């Protein structure tokens, strides 16, 4: 390199050529040793996260219709209905932004609010089983299938997010990603992942009474 620089001014274009080639080579070499891996994995995880939010949002939008329909047939199930409305209000009030996935407390809050809503919604669907008129109502059936479909989409989106975050966090912690994380990509934080709540880990109990 030093020799190339010491070439007399007459061969300036050749020097420039060498410099350009070197820059190209270095660019390729850097890309080859994974300097792009962390940003790539981060973008993928962020995309998976927005899909998760999207599906939760979709569920949230379906709930008012469901509540109205159930109210028409089973107004006496006031407790369950209000618990769904309250849980929905709480879940939508949780502020979610780009920092949520790297902030353990905010992520925990989001996850808790959504799982509370899932629980309330599950109870609402369960009590609906006791009302034959409601169960044969066409719009209730359609809503029920949409809610079920959305719950399933949430499950898939969460699974994709869990996998994307696993790849991203692994890239941050393992060689050669750990080198980049310590030097060039110092701002990249590990992301939070979904955990299964303790009550969901227990096998369901069957009671006879």
């Amino acid at each position, binding site marked *: 390199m030093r020799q190339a620089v010491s070439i007399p001014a007459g061969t300036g274009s050749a020097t420039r050529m060498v410099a350009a080639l070197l820059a190209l080579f270095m660019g390729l070499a850097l890309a080859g040793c994974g300097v792009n891996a962390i940003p790539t994995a981060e973008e993928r995880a962020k995309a998976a996260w927005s899909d998760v939010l999207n599906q939760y949002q979709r569920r949230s939008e379906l709930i008012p219709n469901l509540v109205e329909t159930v109210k028409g047939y089973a107004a006496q199930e006031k407790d369950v209905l209000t618990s769904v409305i309250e849980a929905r209000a709480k879940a939508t009030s949780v502020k979610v932004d780009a920092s949520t996935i790297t902030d353990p407390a905010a992520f925990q809050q989001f996850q808790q609010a959504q799982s509370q809503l899932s629980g309330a919604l599950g109870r609402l669907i369960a009590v609906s089983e006791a009302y034959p008129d409601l169960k044969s109502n066409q719009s209730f*059936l359609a809503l029920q*299938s949409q809610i*079920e*479909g959305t719950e*399933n989409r949430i499950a898939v989106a969460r699974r994709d997010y869990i996998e994307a975050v696993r790849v991203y966090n692994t890239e941050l912690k*393992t060689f050669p990603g750990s080198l980049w994380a310590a030097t060039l990509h110092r701002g990249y934080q590990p992301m939070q992942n979904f955990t299964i709540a303790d009550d969901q880990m227990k096998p369901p109990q069957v009671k006879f009474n």
Partner: protein
Amino acid sequence: MKRFGTMPAALLAALTLLLALLLPAAAELSFPPLSGRVVDAAGILDAATTASLDSKLAAHEAKNGDQLVVATVPSLQGTSVEDYANQLFRHWQLGQAKINNGVLLLVAPNDRKVRIEVGYGLEGVLTDAVAATIISTVLVPAFRAGDFPGGAAKGADAILEILNLDPEEAARRASAAGAVEGPILGLMRDQWLVVFFLVVMAVFWIVVFVRIFLRPPGKRLVRTPDGRMIIWPAGISRGNPRSSWSSSSRSSSGGFSGGGGSSGGGGASGSW
């Protein structure tokens, strides 16, 4: 210098960790191979039903591009029908890539579960509510009566009917599918992209070398870094990249395969 001794150990540890993380990444569920448009791994369909279903599904795919596959599995391997169907759908990559127009009708007779899994691209046509209606009115009654071939055939008919409901929409999907599929002058679209890229690269390098070595006519003599002068023969142009490329061997052996589509869990499931 002292640090140098610890480096290989750390490196080895990091590499071992990476390896350990890579190994268990294999899928936990095992899936039957995608042998055709009807995969009867549970063995509940008769030959006549399989054949007529297959030709019906093939005709629909030729017309609209939508890929509908009917599958039966002996076991869900301990997971839910929703989870199994989604993973199987993604494993087989039903539907064309980018437009994701695949549908999977999955029957698990021993678990008494059925699911219609819909690819991203068809969620607006075959909605959850519609899929749930097909399951509760067509599939479940037939399966409850033990009529698996009849139920599967009628279920597939009902799905195809929905997919054909709006002719304009169906035509639009068909043209979108055609744009992805058809070869142009013998090469696939991404192969043309490779050709285009190579041509651009070749032109770039030719321009670069022409500028460097041919522009000032007196400077054919090039000084090497160590000060020697060498003569650049005019006849040899070094900036002539090879114009051959390794063609990606596309499996077009006439067999049936998924088109690279994916699903995000749309559809509905039922049990009997």
